[in-house]
């Protein structure tokens, strides 16, 4: 069951929309909020779901770029 840490680089003027978009996703938690970035942790059941979360995060309004900085898949290998 993958756990990933995702850094979202955001447009500071639209970060509220980005927060709203992340909060709406049940497999994601915002762990830290900065002026132009969000630290998000995803907790999913499969690699496909993990990938889908990251893809979805990258398309949320106000998000400029999504970087997976940490990924653990120890249950799956």
């Amino acid at each position, binding site marked *: *069951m993958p*756990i*990933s*840490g*995702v*850094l979202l*680089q955001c447009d*500071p003027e639209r970060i509220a929309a980005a927060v709203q978009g992340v909060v709406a996703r049940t497999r994601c*938690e915002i*762990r*830290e909020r*900065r002026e*132009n*970035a969000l*630290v*998000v*942790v995803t*907790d999913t059941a499969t*690699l*496909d779901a*993990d*990938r889908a979360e*990251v*893809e979805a995060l990258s398309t949320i309004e106000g998000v*400029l*770029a999504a*970087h*997976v*900085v*940490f*990924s*653990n*898949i*120890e*249950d799956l*290998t």
Partner: protein
Amino acid sequence: MTANRREFLKRMAAAWTGASFAALAGCGDDQQPVSQAILDDPGVTWSKAPCRFCGTGCGVMVGVRDGKVVAVAGDQQNPVNLGLLCVKGYHLPGILYGEDRLAMPVIRENGDERESPMEEALDYVADRFKQIVDEHGKESIAVYGSGQWTIQDGYAASKWMRAGVGNNNVEANARLCMASAVTGFLTTFGKDEPMGCYDDFEQGDVFVFWGNNMAEMHPVLFSRILARKKSVPAVQLVDIGTRRTRTTEASDHYLEFEPNSDLAIANAIAREIIEQGWVNEDFVSKHCLFKKASEDIGYGLRDEGAKQNPMANEQIGFEEYRRFVSKYTPEYASEISGVPASQIRDLAKLYGDPRQKVVSLWCMGMNQHTRGTWINNLVYNLHLLTGKISQPGNGPFSLTGQPSACGTVREVGTLTQALPAGRRVDNPEHRAYAAKIWDVPVESLAPKPSMHTMAMFRNLATGKLKGVLIQVTNPMVTLPDLNWFKEGIAKHKPFIVVSDVYPTPTTEVADVVLPAAMWVEREGCFGNSERRTQQWNQLVDPPGEALPDSTITVEIARRMGHGKLFPWEGEEALARGLYEEYREFTIGVGKDVALYDDLKRARGLRWPVVDGVETRWRYAEGSDPYVPAGAEFAFYGNHSLGDRAVIWQRPYQEPPESPDDEYPFWLATGRVLEHWHTGSMTRRVPQLHQAQPKAYVEINQEDARTMGLSDGASVKLVSRRGELTLDARVGGRGEPPTGRVFVPFFDESLLANVLTLDAHCPISKQPDYKKCAVRLEKV
């Protein structure tokens, strides 16, 4: 996994990610405690390694549990990526564990195919190569490798061919991706590779992307530029391209040009710099000179007649150069390029303004160009005329696409003309130096370059070359005008040995397939785009009987009687021994790489490394130890020219093939974010494969409307060389203008290169994959 462990991992994921942001924003003082906490995790052993994929050279922390890679994290201690990873880096564990990973050798003989133990396969390969050399001479076999070779792999292959077999039949796929950058650097500066480094991204005021989709191809570096823009909003990003991309979206200015017309635009900017009085006369008079060269040089086509020697040149004065560029008014360049003259003037102003620090960036857009060397020269001209070079935030920066295109192909020297550390086979002193280190008679080293990559495969396809060892590359996907090569190889049946990690179209044509160890399954070194050499240790076992490519080469060489060249026993000793011997070549010539033990400790070091200190800006006094005191700058690669860089007179010329009534569209090929090169690794990662499952053709919305095509519709592309049916992508991530289409080349089942033209830069011999003519037919 227990709830406690999940919560522990989530806390670590958050802390690690937060620390990466802090590092990116330049306030990363709290990184160490986070790093330590995760490294202390009793469930996983963590070690450093560079990423396996592109030329950026990101640092990765690799987590191993029970002999398998189970986790990756961006390495916050690595100054390249400051803890960030792109989507490919995050899937690194997946590339090791694809279901069809090659684990045992396969021998195909007389129509039969059999699995074989490695020892037997190596014996078989060595016997066949020996037999070929006995029958056809030492020029009859070759090695073709890659910018994914480790430094050790490339050095072993080069030494075996040159000092063992006695030919210069060594080439690498980097010929297809950055040879024009090499010849650009050599013709202008006398030495290869960038003078600047990634630190420029935190110092520049203007970033100009010349045909470079950096947002998708080098996303971590692009994030550093975005962070710079965030901290200094006046920073400007300029995209000069032939199609809109994610880089365009993030840029302040977009100049869309007609393919090949970058030559005219660069000359027009140079003209404006001169006419507006923006030349840094002090810099130019002390550190530059001017040259012109032959211009009727052709396009390297198979059926092309004799042309002028592309290297013939003569020195000229500034006035002659000024007269030459004077015809490139912004209006004239606009007629050729389609870029409004006002945009060309505005960009010239940014280059010319002494208060603006400018970084020019490029990759395949400029290198895969039938005038690739010229356009590299022309962009250097802009930095030399303005003196904006070899200083923090000022300089031209050629990016690379493979993890060790620089470290292995360019520095070790795995192109036919090269010896290690910038030496050449056709220089008697250089051969003597190599012979001494290799402990072989100098007469045994072949004195002339033999075949560049295109010639090597033309010779394979016409039966002149009888055998080849291909390692960690996939030419049966990447060669232009691919069908011609495939048909020739099928007809003449040369003996082909391929070592790789997964089945590919190239392993399909092999007589012997050897399974290779990859990335952290073996020890090695890569060298990235900013001259940083990085080392990693073996962390897990390779599958089955797979071996590192260097070991495969050495074992074949030993079996052919060349064992004396490789006295090291065991993988660790071999990795260290090959590197340390290669390092001898680099000392004292401005390319000094670090000691192996220093690399084991560091997150890479940028050469020249003198007295343990790396160099950030080459050719600049105070930064580069090779520049004498009082010189300010010294382009010491051109020592015979008084340590001066060359400003080249190079004209705009038309490409060998342009759209016409029969084939009315321009075709450019390229890469996508999710897949790396031919997709042989990334297509094994289900998540990446699902994100981009097949090749497609990007079509402008207006063209699609005219043809009655909707997104996803089938469309046939036809060129003079082949045809290919693809799904249309309309209004997607990238959008070409009307009259142009784009096809990614990662999909081995939909080969873009059946369409492309086998034309190349006559100086670098690098093919042009960005420009040929096609027509579209609705299916």
